[in-house]
């Protein structure tokens, strides 16, 4: 029941920082209607709503972390603007080149850099997902454990030596690079 209650912008922001699941759930319920309207108006799908919603909240998370959120603007105005802009990008990349009018509003809200970063991250995440489980797990392990040595990698995956780990990591990296390059839009993310 608590998830249905509307909270203040400040409470939602605190939840974004602390990860409070109850208030976050309320934020998701509240923002879903806003995002669904944008997505369905643009002939998007249910999957698009979820993708746009998690990306919008992730952008809010980074804006807040970088102290770039303008508290004079309402959080829902941010949600609406980011969602519109992000969904317009999704549509554009699917071949629909008609960008939506709200694009000009982005300057005012100042999240362009975070949006580009978000799109790039989603692009690379998407490509990594296309790799086979073994490769995906290996690269994710290597990149999310900054201090892990090849020895740690070999130990984690039960491989005979760090040499095996290095070779496998290289092979998987090449596969990922091939997948990225096979996408005609990859240059937009570099």
């Amino acid at each position, binding site marked *: 029941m608590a998830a249905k209650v509307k909270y203040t912008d400040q409470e939602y922001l605190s939840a974004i920082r602390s990860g409070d*699941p109850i208030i976050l759930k309320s934020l*998701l319920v509240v923002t879903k209607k806003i995002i669904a309207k944008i997505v369905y108006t643009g002939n998007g799908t249910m999957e698009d*709503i979820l993708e746009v919603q998690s990306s919008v909240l992730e952008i809010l998370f980074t804006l807040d972390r970088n102290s770039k959120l303008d508290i004079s603007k309402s959080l829902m105005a941010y949600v609406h603007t980011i969602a519109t802009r992000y969904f317009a990008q999704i549509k554009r990349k699917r071949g629909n080149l008609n960008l939506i009018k709200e694009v000009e509003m982005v300057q005012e809200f100042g999240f362009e850099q975070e949006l580009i970063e978000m799109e790039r991250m989603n692009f690379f995440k998407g490509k*990594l997902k296309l790799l086979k489980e073994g490769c995906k797990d290996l690269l994710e392990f290597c*990149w*999310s454990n900054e201090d892990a040595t090849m020895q740690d990698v070999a130990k984690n995956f039960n491989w005979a030596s760090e040499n095996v780990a*290095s070779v496998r990591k290289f092979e998987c*990296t090449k596969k990922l690079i091939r997948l990225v390059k096979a996408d005609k839009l990859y240059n937009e993310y*570099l």
Partner: protein
Amino acid sequence: MVMEQKDIPIIEAWIKGKLHGDDLLSFEKRMTNDAEWAEEVKIYRYSKETFSDKERLEFRKKIEIIQVDIDKEESNKKGLKWYFIFIPIALLGLIAWYWISSSPINTPGTGSTIEAIDSFPEVQDKLLLDDTLKPNENTMEQGISSNPKFSDKELIAMADSKIFDPLQEINLRSETEKQNNLLNKAISDYRQGSYRKAIQKANELMINDSLKSNATLLLGLAHFRLHEYIEAYAAFQQVLALSELAPDPLEWNILMTQLAQKNRSEKTFHQLLEKILSDKQHSYYDKAFELKKVISN
């Protein structure tokens, strides 16, 4: 030149800012002079950066977990709601069927059948949709086609342009998947305008519970494109009842089947339209509002 295994530790050091002096100069020189290598280094760097920000990744994961929770809750609620709606409707339907079939007033030519079914809106709707059971036109309410402003063809064109059609947008993933997956093949047929083939494949997919909603939506859209609005209406209603897909676009599509249908009932059409207009948060509120304005002017 493409990236080699020996390059990886150097690239890692560069990303971490641990490359200095001549090593850094030589790295930067290569980045400038070797475009192919520089491109692969950038791909490596951005891929790595995507997974380096643990705090951010954890936040996203948390959001995705909550999204799944909300979806489950919504599905359960819808399931429960439909359970309470369908049982009374089914009972009413049974009573109506029993009453109509056994009633002495159900004699052709008396006109009493129409009066009798007026008390049962669900049965009435069913009859209005079924060409074989079409009641006497003189006793029917006039549809919006009676509005001289729009011909049937114009209304069909209007519905055609406004229908919610996600199938044109869905990304078919890999070539292999495109060839092997029957649903993707059906979507391909649909996109190419081979609606009958798409219907055939969608029907084959019905046995698969996990694909039932998508297959039925496909079925509805294919019938809609073939101007078979009764079948399209039934399919959209079925998807709505399955409660797996968002209801708003389905309610809109149901309205579109009524808009496009010949011999439509103004009453049914307006009931569906007003249902959407009664919820300002409905995803199709604006479109419904626009439609109402167009048809009432």
